[in-house]
């Protein structure tokens, strides 16, 4: 069954409204990839709202996943990759798994995307030339099934549709009806939106529909997939929202240092997360610092 279309025209909400759409125990797919375009303001709000026992799905996660795991929101995690990249391994994710405190499914990257694509098309599985020989398959035999192509007889791997209860996504722009424009680095956010029962998108700016119509090719998610849009400038911080601003390497250094031990991580949550978003942006350096991140995104040297 395909999900229902969302046709109402005014979907603008506030951060505090997310509890209407995300409940304890939900299966939540998180958008963005690497250290780019993660819905960080929504994640901070999940923590502030005390939403718990989530089953989280990420393709390429980083500080988004580490923060949620560390704050105790996650019961189970499906991932293909979680890394702070230049800033090292994700400390909370590592601690939780190495101590046996987090149930997890390490599912290969293309398989998760295919699972979302299957759900979006309303079919139960999709086949591909899977991760033959990978131990990930042995660990999760219920997820990977070998099938024979009915036309050629070739051996293929089938993966099941993945249907999250909620997808949370960050994008550059939307109108009030939830027409979403994505300009820079895009994970598989469109596939998340198609697969999930409910979709929440935070955006840098909510603009009149006429502005969207000026550049229709930037629209990546049409409004009928989207349940709620929330204006959250710098809502991807400390990850990037290209072309508007780069990721914040200074804050990522702070994060990786403070997440290094459970004690300093608790301080991090108090100092940066358990406040309003405005206070958060002030705490990470305020307007001058945020303008530097914008300038770094603009002034690049091509050869």
């Amino acid at each position, binding site marked *: 069954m395909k999900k229902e279309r969302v046709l109402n025209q005014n979907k603008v909400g506030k951060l505090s409204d997310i509890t209407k759409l995300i409940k304890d125990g939900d299966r939540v797919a998180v958008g963005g990839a690497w250290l780019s375009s993660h819905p960080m303001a929504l994640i901070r709000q999940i923590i502030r709202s005390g939403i718990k026992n989530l089953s989280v799905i990420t393709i390429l996660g980083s500080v988004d996943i580490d923060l949620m795991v560390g704050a105790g929101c996650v019961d189970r995690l499906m991932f293909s990759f979680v890394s702070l990249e230049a800033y090292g391994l994700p400390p909370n*994710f590592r601690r939780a798994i190495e101590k*046996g405190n987090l149930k997890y499914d390490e599912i*290969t990257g293309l398989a998760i995307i295919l699972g979302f*694509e299957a759900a979006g098309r309303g079919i139960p599985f999709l086949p591909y030339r899977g991760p033959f020989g990978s131990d990930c398959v042995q660990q999760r035999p219920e997820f990977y099934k070998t099938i024979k192509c009915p036309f050629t007889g070739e051996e293929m791997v089938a993966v099941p549709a993945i249907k999250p209860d909620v997808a949370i996504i960050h994008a550059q722009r939307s109108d009030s009806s939830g027409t979403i424009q994505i300009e820079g680095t895009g994970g598989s956010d469109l596939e998340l939106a198609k697969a999930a029962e409910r979709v929440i998108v935070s955006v840098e700016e909510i603009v009149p529909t006429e502005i969207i119509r000026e550049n229709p090719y930037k629209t990546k998610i049409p409004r009928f997939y989207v349940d709620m849009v929330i204006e959250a400038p710098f809502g991807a911080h400390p990850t990037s929202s290209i072309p508007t601003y780069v*990721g914040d390497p200074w804050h990522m250094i702070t994060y990786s240092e403070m997440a290094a031990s459970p004690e300093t991580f608790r301080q991090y949550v108090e100092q940066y997360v358990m406040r309003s978003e405005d206070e958060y942006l002030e705490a990470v350096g305020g307007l001058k610092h945020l303008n530097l991140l914008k300038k*770094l995104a603009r002034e*690049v*040297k091509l*050869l």
Partner: protein
Amino acid sequence: MSQYAEEYTIAELVCVAVAREVEDGDILILGSFTPLAFVSYILAKITHAPNIMYMAYSSVDAMPFKLTFASYEAAATKGGLARWNMTECINSLYLGTGVDVEPISSIQADQYGNINISVVGDYQKPMLRGPGGAGAPEVVKMHRKMLGYFPNHTKRTLVPKVDFITGTRWRIGREARTKAGLRPGPIKYITNLAILTKEEENVPFRIESVHPGVKVEDVINNTGFELIAKDVPETEKPTREQIRLLREVIDPYGMVAFDFKSGKERLGYLRDILNKEVEALGY
């Protein structure tokens, strides 16, 4: 005067060796944060391989750019000729046309072309939980050439058998690959000591070359599996021009050295680069 540089760092040598593996016309992908690989692509593109096409983040056919730390995603995006999100990249390139080379760094690699980016020790309760393989488990078998790079060539990295097979080359020899519908091509491990190559299922890795100043015994003694070491030449040194391009044009902040720093040194190294970057902006 010789065309070869007299002075260079090991990171620069490895970077140039990776660039030399790139052939004109190749399609390349930047996976996660791998500045050395990206400098290699750019170096190849502005020297011997102008027709290569590379993908970085969502940017298709990105232009060469000066590598910085804070803005390199922005630079890759700005110069690109299209935007594809991750699904489009995967469907079109990985599963479609096929990527030629993607240098992959892993915690362990073994004599069969298996890589481990998942765990050291027991899977359920590991000593070290790594990041996971992203798409590597599916794509290392598909690349024309499998390229692993290792800044620290030791028996702990190059092991007889990896603790966990995150991804594998799966089919190795020309015939087996062709039969499976995969393009033939070697497995290469480029390390801080040598270049190791494997082309046949039942033939061990061969030392293709040792870097200047490294002895063949050093390579054998630091590798956890059998190697063929017959008439081993020296790895071609970087040329003066390659080193000039790296230092003056592509990578003035020395990002290629990043992978060669220890975990402890890295954040300090990044801070220094960031300071220089911001200074250059006049901020």
